[in-house]
């Protein structure tokens, strides 16, 4: 294995694709990066034979901000509010991974109330994220001028209720800055619990409406059953997690397998579906809605008193010096396993921080399952994989 003695080997030939007729019956078509159903900035270079896709090259990196280099240059206290910008649709879980990693390495205790609050916002975030998933997926399949938009607007209406809750709790609707090292930053204001209960009851009712609109709809079944089948073996090999893994028959949920932040105190079910197609993933997420509501009710009934952080007030902005060591913490985000691999070196800044993004691994399955489907299915599959490109590109 001889390589030139330089840290900058020659970049391979520029991977520019000419998008013309290749002479055979194949058509190379570009989908994205600006596209109504690309879920963000994503470019898929499809090779089509008629309507069938025979090859797909996924080009990502349009949203790359090099979080990992940023983390090496910011202190442990400065970074958590930036961490939410990886998975911006589920910002609470992104922050949680980083903050838990720091607390694990520096052996900082988190009070019980803070742990319960973390679980509460994580589950509320899961509901909001799944609302967005359902809305955008139906909109992709149904058209922004058509039935899809109807489901989209209903789901956004529900998501707005959850975002109102977050706004009265943290002051922000999308990117919160709620978690800090040692606990959480804000406590529950007066009347918030009652509003939370009302919201959750309302969402549970509305879920029944959505299922009524979709499950018995022959069109929905035609578009999602048997489409985008991910076998169990492929799911494990590529490293899928979250609803994609559970929709392929693997009963693996981090909240049950490696409980963190007091998840072991709560009762909830883990949905698993063996089929591995888009419909299975849909069912898994619909059950997750209800289980999240169940956990939220348990927390609201039994929120313990106590401090919300072990480093309150001025201490929250004081430097944390994390001893030498490494740790890998993971949380179960709405998209799957969000992990933070942290190497500390004794100073106020990490030596190396690696984000294991759920959507990056989930998206890696696309080149394996898309060939063989038609163009319309690409959209349905992308929606059921539910990527968020902040997490893919970091």
């Amino acid at each position, binding site marked *: 294995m001889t390589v030139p003695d330089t840290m900058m080997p020659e970049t391979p030939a520029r991977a520019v694709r000419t998008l013309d007729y290749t002479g055979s019956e194949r058509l190379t078509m570009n989908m994205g990066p600006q596209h*109504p159903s690309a879920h963000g900035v994503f470019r898929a270079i499809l090779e089509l034979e008629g309507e069938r896709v025979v090859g797909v090259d996924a080009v990502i990196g349009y949203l790359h901000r090099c979080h990992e280099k940023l983390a090496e240059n910011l202190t442990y206290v400065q970074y958590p509010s930036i961490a939410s910008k990886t998975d911006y649709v589920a910002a609470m879980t992104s922050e949680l991974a980083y903050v838990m990693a720091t607390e694990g390495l520096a052996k900082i205790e988190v009070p019980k109330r803070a742990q319960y609050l973390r679980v509460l916002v994580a589950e509320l975030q899961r509901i909001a994220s799944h609302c967005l998933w359902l809305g955008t997926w139906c909109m992709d*399949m*149904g058209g922004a001028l*058509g039935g899809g*938009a109807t489901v989209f607007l209903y789901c956004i209406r529900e998501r707005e209720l959850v975002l109102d809750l977050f706004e009265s709790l943290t002051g922000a609707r999308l990117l919160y800055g709620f978690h800090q090292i040692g606990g959480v930053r804000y406590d529950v204001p007066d009347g918030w619990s009652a509003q939370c209960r009302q919201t959750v009851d309302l969402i549970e009712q509305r879920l029944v409406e959505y299922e009524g609109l979709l499950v018995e709809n022959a069109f*929905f079944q035609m578009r999602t059953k048997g489409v985008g089948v991910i076998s169990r073996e492929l799911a494990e090999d590529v490293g899928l997690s979250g609803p994609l893994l559970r929709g392929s028959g693997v009963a693996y949920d981090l909240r049950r397998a490696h409980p963190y932040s007091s998840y072991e105190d709560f009762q909830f079910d883990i949905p698993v579906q063996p089929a591995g197609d888009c419909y299975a993933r849909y069912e898994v997420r619909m059950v997750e809605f209800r289980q999240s509501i169940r956990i939220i009710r348990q927390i609201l009934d039994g929120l313990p008193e106590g401090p919300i952080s072990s480093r309150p007030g001025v201490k929250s902005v004081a430097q944390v010096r994390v001893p030498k060591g490494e740790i890998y913490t993971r949380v179960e985000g709405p998209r799957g396993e969000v992990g933070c691999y942290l190497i500390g070196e004794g100073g106020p800044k990490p030596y190396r921080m690696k984000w294991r993004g759920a959507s990056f691994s989930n998206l890696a399955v696309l080149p394996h399952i898309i060939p063989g489907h038609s163009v319309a299915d690409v959209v349905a599959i992308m929606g059921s994989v539910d990527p968020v490109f902040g997490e893919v590109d970091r």
Partner: protein
Amino acid sequence: MTDLSPALSALLMGGGVLGALLGLLAYVTLLERKFAARLQSRIGPYRVGPHGLLQPIADGVKLLLKEDLVPASADRTVFNLAPVVFLVPCFLIYATIPFAPGLGVADVSIGVLFFLAVSSMEIVGLFMAGWSSNNKYALLSAMRAVNQIISYDLPFLMAAMVPVLLAGSLRLSDIAMAQQGGLWFVFYPVIGQIGFIAFIVASVAAENRVPFDILEAESELVAGFRVEYSGMKFAMITLSEYAHVIGTSFLAALLFLGAWSGPGPEWLGAVWFLLKALGVFVLITWIRWSFIRIRVDQILQISWKLLLPLTVLLVMVTAIVIVLRGPHGG
């Protein structure tokens, strides 16, 4: 109208119909937007004029003022001609519709056939638009369009044959007269209802409305064959599509829903006709805003494997019923 020469009266009538139609189409777009909005728990256009009533005019003015872009590598002649070729058939279908007894532009004896033949000519305009845009998305969409419209024109025709057989004539005013004072064709046991449903499904598909709009599948092909059009040409294409939908709604109201019959004096017949057509339009719109779309191969399967055998069977059953019933009126 009898003292004017037939040519002049047809011309005046045609001009009148066109004028009324353009006004109607503009406000039908507003109706659709308001209806869709209420379905989605929003309000719809509200600010332009009282309750958004000036919205269509604002949209028209805006589209008139937009720059007319022609892509550099597009086939200019065909590109400019395509909206015209698309528009003409969509407006021509109104020529044979009698809006009131004796009030029609040209009441030809092959009314139904004329309607269906002319409305299928828009495929040519559609394909011209898709091909000349020199754009892969447009091309893909145009190919799907040809496929779909051809597949659905057959069940469309077959379903339209049911009232033709029941009335015994292809002339549209005869079919309308046959329902005056009697039973609307949609109320005929079984064959009327199935015929009406098949007609609506086939017409929604032939018009590229959701759930059969893979043609312009916005989230996949981003407006399909009209992706390169802007300004007035785009307005022409959109207006022609709405004209086609409304024309088919009029046809459905005439063939199945009794045309002019309704309570009240004779002259109110035209108003009832309009209301029934708008009712069918609202039904089509409701379907559009409630369903997601299906893939093109599934659409074609529905047409060839389900709708066509069903409508052919329907026509055969209707024929048998007529023979058993005896001579018409007997």
